[in-house]
């Protein structure tokens, strides 16, 4: 027991919790980084998160049609399809990266989404770092 997956979460500032003080969300969101559009995420950010011992990455993006930069969310989705292959080749299961599209100005869903992701990560167990 006792395994606590380390989850890194990036959330789009325009769609998630912009009416709320992120710091107030508590310690469950230890590695939560708000970004100005999920489309600003570079594949490198995710690779670095895994290299620096994350067990999973959750991206909270805007709903389809609501991206402030037209299609940043969709671009990130496309990026993830390629990146997941790269991750899998290194023994990082595809399910360790998740993107959720929604709008949540009050940040009410964030804790639930993080908990859900952590649950799936716990089910997967610690990341096999043999190839990293």
């Amino acid at each position: 027991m006792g395994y606590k997956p380390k989850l890194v979460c990036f959330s789009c500032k325009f769609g998630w919790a912009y009416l709320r003080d992120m710091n107030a969300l508590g310690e469950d969101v230890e590695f939560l980084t708000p970004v100005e559009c999920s489309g600003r995420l570079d594949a490198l950010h995710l690779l670095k998160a895994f290299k620096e011992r994350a067990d999973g990455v959750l991206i909270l993006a805007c709903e389809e049609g609501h991206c402030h930069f037209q299609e940043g969310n969709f671009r990130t989705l496309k990026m993830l399809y390629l990146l997941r292959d790269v991750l899998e080749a290194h023994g990082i299961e595809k399910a360790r990266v998740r993107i959720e599209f929604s709008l949540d100005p009050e940040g009410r869903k964030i804790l639930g989404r993080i908990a859900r992701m952590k649950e799936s990560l716990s089910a997967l167990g610690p990341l096999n770092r043999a190839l990293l």
Partner: protein
Amino acid sequence: MGEKPKVAICWLGACGGCDEAIVDLNEGLLDVAEAVSIEFWPVAMDYKYDHLAAFGKGEIAVGLVSGHVRNSEHAEVAHLLRDRCKLVIALGACACFGGTPALANLVSREEILDAVYVKAPSVVNPDGRLPQVETAWEEEILRLPAFFDHVYALNQVIEVDYYLPGCPPPSELIRNGVRAVLTDDLPPKGSTLAPRKALCETCPRNKTKPMRLEIHGPIRRIHEVEADPEMCFLAEGILCMGPATRSGCGETCIRSNTPCRGCFGPVPGVSDPGSRFISSLAALLKVGTTGDPEAVMASLGDPVGYLYRFTHPVSTLGARRLSQATEETP
């Protein structure tokens, strides 16, 4: 005139292509031999490691070292070269970034040994015997280098002063590099002795690359299509690493109607060319409202093999420094 500067040329985990590129200097090699004294070159002449060890610390002016580090012999020779050579130049993609053999980092040492010595169709090995670092034979102990769990770029094992990339580096680049050393006309240590621009900037097809590049529909792979000999590959939806790759190769592949695979390594300032390419490709690929982004991205086939073909050990996920503690040594 004083003594000629001494040069050592050595291969570690290499195919010999980089040595061949030196031989390809042709008559130019005579000029090189005129200007320097080649003291060590195992591929071309009968030298043993003892010969190298007999030199004093820093007595050799420059060591041109090709190949990656995959076993304890490579590591030992790399350290010896570092000690005896004043300057060490990593020659070729394997020494600079690990090269194609480093795609083996995507499987473990155990899987490799099993595939090669047990499962290969031409092998009969019912007892599953694997090569041992030490084997007692009659009164003797026979020794083999230890096979590491990872392929390392040269600078993950010893300090490297300069880099001459390419698979192999063009002879001209080698000649200029050696000349720069001899005339002491060198950039700061750690520099790559090749232009800083991206390949696209020197590519003859650049004029056909649209200002706003967009790729519609699936990515095409070069063996599946008959590529237009004039058109920018990316504009035709064929993957080309030119935008993320350093120039200086003379566009050999492009001129043979083959897209760039990235053997010159990343442009300055980019640490992980593969991930840079993934991010740009995601922006370039237009899927349309009815398209299936997953299927379009899957058309790339083997993204890791393509995007990290030469650079896996220096990539974000693949980077490691050789630590004797983590690798078995004899």
